[in-house]
């Protein structure tokens, strides 16, 4: 019988305690952050969208090889003598035209493995994380600074150069043969 009244009392009492707590919370300020208007500061080493500083990129393809999902596509064209591509900020001489540098962020898993092998530290994480698109192809970011025509020009230049070199080589070889013939 005592148990019975104790239960009754406990039931009422605990409900009142709970109601008091919720009543207090009714007037505590909300902890909600109004996201698009208010944003939290991101942590220091956050991993979001990549950025490539093409002024520093030497086209060494190391990032592309490090990527576990192969989402970086790089195409390069060798420069011909006489073309000056400038130097990177840490003093490396550039020797390749980067004609294509695409990163497909639909595939990227933000593992940051591409960042470390870069010899000039020109590929790195930014703090941009809101870049959703309606079309998957819009997620392929093109970083190459050369335009189509320029890239074509460089390619033709290089082909011409190799062809010339090839011609010179064959001419030289032919000359060598002739010389040998006359000598014998």
């Amino acid at each position, binding site marked *: 019988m005592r148990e019975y009244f104790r*239960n*009754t009392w406990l039931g*009422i009492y605990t*409900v009142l305690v*709970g109601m008091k*707590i*919720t009543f207090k919370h009714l007037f505590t300020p909300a902890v*909600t952050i109004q996201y698009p208007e208010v944003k939290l500061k991101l942590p220091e080493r956050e991993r979001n969208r990549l950025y490539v500083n093409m002024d520093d990129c030497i086209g060494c393809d190391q990032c592309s090889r490090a990527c576990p999902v192969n989402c970086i596509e790089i195409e390069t064209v060798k420069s011909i003598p006489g073309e000056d591509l400038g130097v990177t900020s840490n003093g490396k001489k550039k020797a390749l035209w980067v004609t294509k540098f695409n990163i497909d962020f639909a595939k990227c898993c933000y593992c940051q493995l591409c960042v470390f092998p870069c010899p000039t530290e020109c590929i790195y994480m930014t703090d941009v994380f809101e870049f959703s698109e309606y079309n998957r192809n819009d997620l392929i970011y093109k970083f190459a600074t050369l335009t189509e025509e320029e890239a074509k020009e460089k390619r033709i230049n290089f082909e011409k150069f190799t062809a010339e070199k090839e011609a010179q080589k064959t001419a030289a070889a032919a000359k060598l043969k002739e010389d040998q013939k006359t000598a014998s």
Partner: protein
Amino acid sequence: MYEYFYELTGNTILSTLIVAIFPLLNVLIVALIGVYLERKVSARIQDRIGPNRTGPFGLFQTIADFVKMLQKEDATAKDIDSKLYNIAPVLVFTGSFAVYAAIPFSSKLIGSEVEVGLFYVIAISSLVVGGILMAGWASNNKYSLLGAMRSAAQIISYEIPTAIIVLSIVMITGTLSLDKISNMQTAYFWNWNILGGAEFGLTKFLLIPFMIVGFIIIFISTLAEVNRTPFDIPEAESELVAGYFTEYCGMKWAMFMLSEYGNMFAVSAIVSILFFGGYHSPIGYLGNSLGIEWLIPFEQAFWFLAKGWTFILIQIWLRWTLPRLRVDQLMSLCWKYLIPYAFVNLIVIGIILLL
């Protein structure tokens, strides 16, 4: 009200329809504001903000939801019993809406001044059980059926303590008419039944503690009858999806929701009529002291709605405080605690009244 419109139109059916619009409007408004308040209060209790994008303070959120509901396709499952399936929401809504016929909103706004109003209210609200069982059975879904069975067991069990407390009120007032019960508690708040009724004397003071116990019991059991948390096992979202209306969508689902909020206000109204003076003001009427006769019914309507909303707010507050009861706990609360207490209460009140 009815007489007024009857004189105006001279047509019984038309005037009845016009009078019936007021409670319908009330139910709609209760549902609109109730859902909004529920979201806001729950958000505040959990230290969130709640809806705040649709209109100022998110006020139009429920209206937007309602428009969305209207546009929805009326999708139905293949193996339902379509006759029962279609009747059920109408029946549930009818059950909760018919209660309003006997509820006095003010001395001038009563659907029907029946002498057995209280009896009618208790009887007609049981119609809801039938609707719920139908919905659960016709949906051909395990969750729905489980929810419906639980609901039937719960509503029927909790009707007993409600009825006993109602009986003790009837013993004190000597009438079943809701209007007369309200009128007995007129003028000031010390005439309210929870403070022992209007008759001044020893009985009044002896009655007070038992009336408070009675109020607590009837509040708990009406809460269970309208399936509100902590007694929401029939529609327990986390275990039964949505209970008996799992298979419903669009407007049919909205009917269930509407009847739930209609029920909430109805039981709040009943409790306030039985214990808190119904539509009567606790502090006297402005219309009386200023000598403006026509102001009084409006004041009465205001006080009635204010009392009803107070109880709705308490229900919402409770919902976001307490966890759901288990089925066995639910039954033991009803049969082992509420019913014995209600019986003892009834007997003691009887003895006090004999003094």
